[in-house]
């Protein structure tokens, strides 16, 4: 375990980058040594008021500063080159989601990070939301038995009128509802129930955006007959901000989780889950969320960076949300694009004829 602070450099000073900067800057075991952005306005203001060393060229920054760890928060289309440059210089890397717009690149970077034994993490921050972690704990303990169906949904107000073109509304640059919203739902599915083997009935529809989809719907298929539905719509301004919701149905009940709460319905009592009663059990984030050293816009944003820094201190590459997980999300996103374009299923999937209610829960 290292005792001196981890020297961190940050690339990309948009909304996520500034948020990461504020959080890392206050971390007791990290020291922010340099920032980089192509917009000189932001870097000049920052360095004038904070004294931070600022760069416009990330390669120069990496060569001169030699940081222990790098945070990448640039538009997704630029991730592959930047992450590769950082890994080649033996820096641990945290990268915003999606990891890459080309899933093969994501896989290559995951392999490179693993081969070099470097800590690697992707910014799927919902994995650090206490309510989703509690849902995971309940699932892993088997309280609702084997899952036969789930629904993962992401709604929010990003594009609610025809808008000017930025990277965010261009699929090629890593924008669009699929990369921006649906990827969070896909990763949450991977976190909770694992990666699907196939996808079907994918719809990528446009409402306002010219160069990307505004809504994503699909059915996710598993080899054991389990199915899931994915729904994402970033043009829903009935919500103040993004809401991710997951509902899972198992042989012994159902779990619903969002950022604020976990609602568990149990059919029969189970030995693994002490304190849970048959029927409804509800737990709220106010009771579930562990405190953080600095709060900016949600405990999960602080928690994910702390996790990365602690892994870097220990030199343990296995993060809760590795590049491998990032590559898997990108691979499923690619499957959805292919399926929406009319590609047939690669293989027929088994349809479960009967949910084994009675057998699954017998001791």
């Amino acid at each position, binding site marked *: 375990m290292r005792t001196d602070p981890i020297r961190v450099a940050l690339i990309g000073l948009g909304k996520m980058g500034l948020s990461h900067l*504020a959080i890392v800057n206050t971390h007791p075991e990290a020291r922010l040594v340099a920032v980089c952005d192509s917009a000189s306005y932001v870097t000049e203001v920052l360095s004038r008021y904070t004294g931070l060393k600022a760069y416009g060229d990330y390669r120069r920054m990496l060569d001169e500063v030699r940081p222990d760890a790098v945070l990448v928060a640039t538009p997704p289309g630029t991730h592959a080159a930047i992450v590769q440059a950082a890994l080649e210089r033996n820096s641990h890397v945290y990268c915003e989601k999606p990891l890459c717009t080309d899933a093969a690149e994501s896989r290559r970077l995951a392999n490179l990070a693993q081969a070099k034994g470097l800590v690697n993490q992707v910014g799927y921050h919902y994995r650090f939301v206490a309510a989703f972690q509690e849902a995971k704990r309940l699932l892993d303990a088997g309280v609702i038995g084997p899952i036969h169906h789930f629904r993962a949904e992401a709604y929010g107000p990003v594009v609610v009128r025809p808008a000017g073109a930025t990277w965010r509304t261009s699929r090629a640059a890593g924008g669009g509802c699929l990369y921006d919203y649906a990827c969070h739902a896909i990763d949450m599915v991977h976190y909770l129930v694992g990666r699907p083997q196939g996808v079907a009935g994918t719809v990528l529809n446009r409402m306002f955006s010219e160069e990307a989809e505004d809504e994503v719907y699909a059915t996710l298929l598993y080899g054991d007959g389990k199915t899931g539905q994915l729904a994402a719509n970033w043009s829903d301004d009935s919500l103040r901000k993004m809401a991710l919701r997951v509902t899972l149905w198992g042989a012994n009940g159902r779990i619903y989780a969002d950022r*604020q*709460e976990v609602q568990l319905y149990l059919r029969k009592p189970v030995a693994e889950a002490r304190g849970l009663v048959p029927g409804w059990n509800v737990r709220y984030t106010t009771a579930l969320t562990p405190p953080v050293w600095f709060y900016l816009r949600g405990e999960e944003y602080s928690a994910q960076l702390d996790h990365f820094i602690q892994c870097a201190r220990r030199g343990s590459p296995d993060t809760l949300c590795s590049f491998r997980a990032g590559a898997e999300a990108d691979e499923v996103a690619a499957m959805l694009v292919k399926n929406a374009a009319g590609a047939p299923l690669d293989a027929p999937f088994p349809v479960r004829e009967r949910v084994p209610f009675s057998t699954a829960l017998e001791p």
Partner: protein
Amino acid sequence: MTVLPRLLFGDNQFFGVNHMSEERARAQAMRFATTSSMIEVLGAAYDEGIKAFMCTTHERIAEICQHVREHPRQFADFQFYPCMPYGVKYANAVTEHGIIGALKRFLPQEGAFGALVKGGFAVATRDVKGLGELLIDAEMKMFEGLSTPVIFLQNLVTDLLLGLGMHEGLRIFAEHVRCRYRAEPGFITMNLPRCLDVLEALGLDNPVVCANINKAGFRMCGGIGTYERAIATRRFQPIAMSVMASGAIPPREALEYVCAQPGIRSIVFGASSRANIRETRALVQELSRRAPRVAEAVAA
């Protein structure tokens, strides 16, 4: 110095903000679908003697401001405690237009300086102070002609500046609010101990600081004990918010905890009905009277 009222009425319930449940948040947003439904509840609060409204600069607050201006007798001595900026508005604009694009959208376009801004002058010269003041003025426009004794910087901005180490931004805010609006600057934060350290270092004496203060320790960064010690021993004017942790703590228990700390000047609370407002006011009156002097104990 402004004497803070014991109770301030908050506006989270009006805009579907609930930190505990999406369902509750949506139900509240439906309950307050119209501005008149908000004004009705504000009127009930006023009748119960709560004449201070701590509100964001959400565009619908402008309609409430207009109503109060048009009904000076119904809302005599009514005070607004603006909290700026309404973060979601800026966050969405940054998402859509980038940082520079968003700045330009929120800056005034009229006047000689406005023209310079439009031409990118203030942006090009990195005039952060000038930009900050223009943004504050843009947010304050809706309160023209109304009483605003304290003007708050929202926690998203206070804490972002704390985190970035751009402490000068806090000073720019405080000075402009004092000079231009003759108001006391207030700071909302989720990181009370850190915030107090920085405000002290900036020489801002006895500042108004609003933070989560609740028995559950919910969103009290640095820990509940550190908060209690700061309230008991440090020189500032604390306003407790989220005292019920969005409903996680029952009202009596929640208010007992807050009222037992004599250092806490004010409590901001939200409610959706006259009955709830009356209950909270009565509880605070009762509990404040018999509160034990725990400050010394905590300090020791």
